C-alpha cells in the first residue's frame, strides 16, 4: 500500500468535492433567460466530478500497490531544510516586504545578499574566505538589483512595486 498516494488522493478528492459543491450552488442565470447548458458552473462541476473519480482510482491503485519506498525522488540529506529556507526567504521578500514603500532596488539587493550569504556561509567559513565572500556577494547583489531595476524602469517602462 502506498500511503503517500492515499493522502494525495484524499486531498484531491476533497478538492474535487468542494469544486463540485460550489459549482452546483453557483447561480444558473435562468432568470436572465440563459440556457441551462451554458451555466457558469457546468465546466468546473464536470471537472470536480472527474477529479473525484480519478482520486478514487488513485486510492484503488495505492491500496493494490506492493509496499515500497514512499519517496518519488531519492532522499537527499537536508533537501527539505534547504528548500524550506529558500521558500521562507522568497515568501518574506515577495509576499510580505514588497510594495510597502521601500525602493525595490534596496529590497532586491538585500534579498540577493541575504539569500546568497545564508546558503554559502558554511562553504566560505570552511575555505577561510568569509570576508571576501561577503564583500563579493554585496557587490554582486547591489549591481544585479540596480541593473534589473534600471532595466525594468527605464527600458521596459514598468513602475516597480
Amino acid at each position, binding site marked *: 500500500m502506498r500511503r*503517500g498516494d492515499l493522502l*494525495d488522493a484524499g486531498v*484531491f478528492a476533497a*478538492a474535487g468535492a468542494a*469544486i463540485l459543491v*460550489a459549482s452546483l450552488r*453557483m*447561480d444558473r*442565470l435562468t432568470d*436572465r433567460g440563459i440556457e441551462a*447548458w*451554458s451555466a*457558469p*458552473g*457546468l*465546466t*468546473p462541476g*464536470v*471537472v*470536480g466530478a*472527474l*477529479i473525484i473519480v*480519478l*482520486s478514487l*482510482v*488513485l486510492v484503488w491503485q495505492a491500496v493494490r500497490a506492493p509496499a515500497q519506498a514512499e519517496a*518519488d525522488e531519492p532522499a*537527499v540529506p537536508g*533537501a*527539505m531544510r*534547504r*528548500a524550506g*529556507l*529558500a*521558500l521562507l526567504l*522568497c515568501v518574506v*521578500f*515577495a*509576499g510580505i516586504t*514588497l*510594495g510597502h514603500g521601500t525602493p*525595490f532596488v534596496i529590497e*532586491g539587493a538585500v*534579498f*540577493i545578499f541575504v*539569500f*546568497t550569504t545564508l*546558503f*554559502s556561509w558554511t*562553504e566560505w567559513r570552511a575555505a577561510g574566505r568569509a570576508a571576501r565572500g561577503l564583500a563579493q*556577494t554585496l557587490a554582486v547583489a547591489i549591481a*544585479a538589483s540596480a541593473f*534589473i531595476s534600471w*532595466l*525594468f524602469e527605464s527600458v*521596459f*517602462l*514598468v*513602475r516597480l*512595486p
Partner: protein
Amino acid sequence: MDGLNHLGAALAALAGPWQIAYALSATLAGIVIGLLPGLSATLGVALFTTLTLKMAPADAILVLVCVYVGAIYGGSRTAILLNIPGTAANAAACLDGHMLARQGQAGRAMGIATTGSVAGSLFGVLCLAMFTPLLAETALKFGAFEFFWLGMVGVMMSGTLTGSNPIKGWLMGLLGIFVATIGLDPVHAHPRFTFDNNEISGGIGLIPALVGAFGFAEVLTVMSQTKLKAVVSSVDSVLPKIADLLRYWRTIIRSGLIGVFVGILPGVGEDMAAWSSYAAAKRASKEREKFGKGSVDGLIAAETGDNAAIPGALIPALALGIPGSAPAAVLMAAMIIHGAQPGPMLMVNQPQFIYDVVGITLLATLGILVFGLVLVRPILWVLRVPRDIIMPIVFVLCVLGSYSITQRLFDVWVMLGVGIACFWLRRRGFPVAPFVLGLVLGDIVDKSLRRGLVLSDGSLLPFFTRPISAALAALVLVMLLMQVPMVKRWFARRNKT
C-alpha cells in the same frame, strides 16, 4: 505560390540590423538559460515574455522564438561536459555525449550536438512551413464539439506521456482546467470562485502561473539539491567532421521525423522527442553495443530529435491553438498578448504570421550554429557562477516578470502560490506539464463544451457522432482503456508473443 511570397516577405523583414541583433542576443540568452541546470526553456520564454511586453509584436515574437531554440540547444553543453542536462530535453544527450567527453572528445561531441541540433531544427522548419497551412485548413472544419475533444486529448495525452502515473498526470491536467475557470466566466461574465474579491475576478494570469510553475518551483528544487562543482575540462576542436554528418544521414532524417511528430503531440515536449529518437536510433543501429558508451549515432539522434520537436510543437500551436509543449504554450500565450490569434483562423486572418514564425525559427537556427561553433569556451564561464547567486537573481526576475504584466502584486502572489504548489506536487510524483496544458486549454474546453451543448440543445450525441469528434473521442477512450490493468496485461502478453 502564396506561401513562397509570404516566406520571402518574412525573410526580407528579418534581414534588418535590429532584427539580426535581437535574434543573436536572444539566441545567446537562450543558450545561457539552457546551459544552467535548473533553468528551463519554459522559464526562459516566460521571463522574456514579461521583458518584451512593450516591444513591437514582431520583434517580441522574434526574441521569444530565439530564446526557445537557444535554450533547448544550450542544455547540451552541460549534458556533454558535466553529465547534467541543462534542460530535460538534453537528458538523452548525457548518455553518449558525456562518455565522448570522458574519452577526450568533448569538442567533437559538442560539434556533433550542434550539427544535429541545426539539422533537426532545419528539418522541423521545413515541416512547419509545409504542414501548418494544411492543418489549419483542416481545422476550419472543426466546431465546438471538435475543439472540446481536442482540448481534452491535449490534456490527457500530456498526462499519459509525462510522469510515471497517467492518473496523476490527468489529475494535474484537470486541476489546470479548473484554475483556468477561476475569475469571470468568458460567456456570461459571471464570477466563478472569486469569493467577492476584485483581484481574483480578473482570473489567474497565465504568465505569472507559468513563471511560478517553471521558475519559482525550479528555484526551490535546485536549492534543495546538494551543490555540484562545475569542473570544465579542456575542450578539443568543435568543428564537426563532414564524414560524421554523411555517415549518419539516415539517423538525422529518422530523428527529424520522430522529433517533429512527437513535437506535434500536445504537451509532450522535446525531452520525449529526444528519448524516442535515441531509442529508434539504437534499434536501427548496427553498433547497438556502443550506445551509452560514446556513440556518435546516439548523440546525433538525441539532439536532432529534440530540436526538430521545437518547430513540431509550433505546428499545432499555430494551426489549432493547441500547444505541442510547455514552452510552446508560453509562446502561444505571448502571441495572443501581442495580437496574434493562433488557431484555424490564423491562416485566414494573418497568414503572413505563420511564415514570420518560420523565418524567425530559421534565423534562430543559424544563431545556434554560429554560437555553437564560435563561443564554446566563453559560454562555459557561466557554469562557474555559483547557484547561490544565480537562483536569487532568477527569483527577482520571476517577481518582476510576474508583476510587470498588469502591475499588480496579486500576480506575484499567484506566482508564489502556484510555485509552492507545483514544487510540492512534483515531489509527490505529479507532473507539471499537464497542469500547464490544462491552464492553457481550459478556456477552449470550457467555451466549447458549453457552446456545443447549447447548439445540440443538451444532447451529447454530436460529441460522439460527428466524424472528427468521434475519432478524437475514440482516442480519449483508448488512452483511458490503456490504464485498465486487464488491458495492459493483454497488450503485454501480445507483445511477448
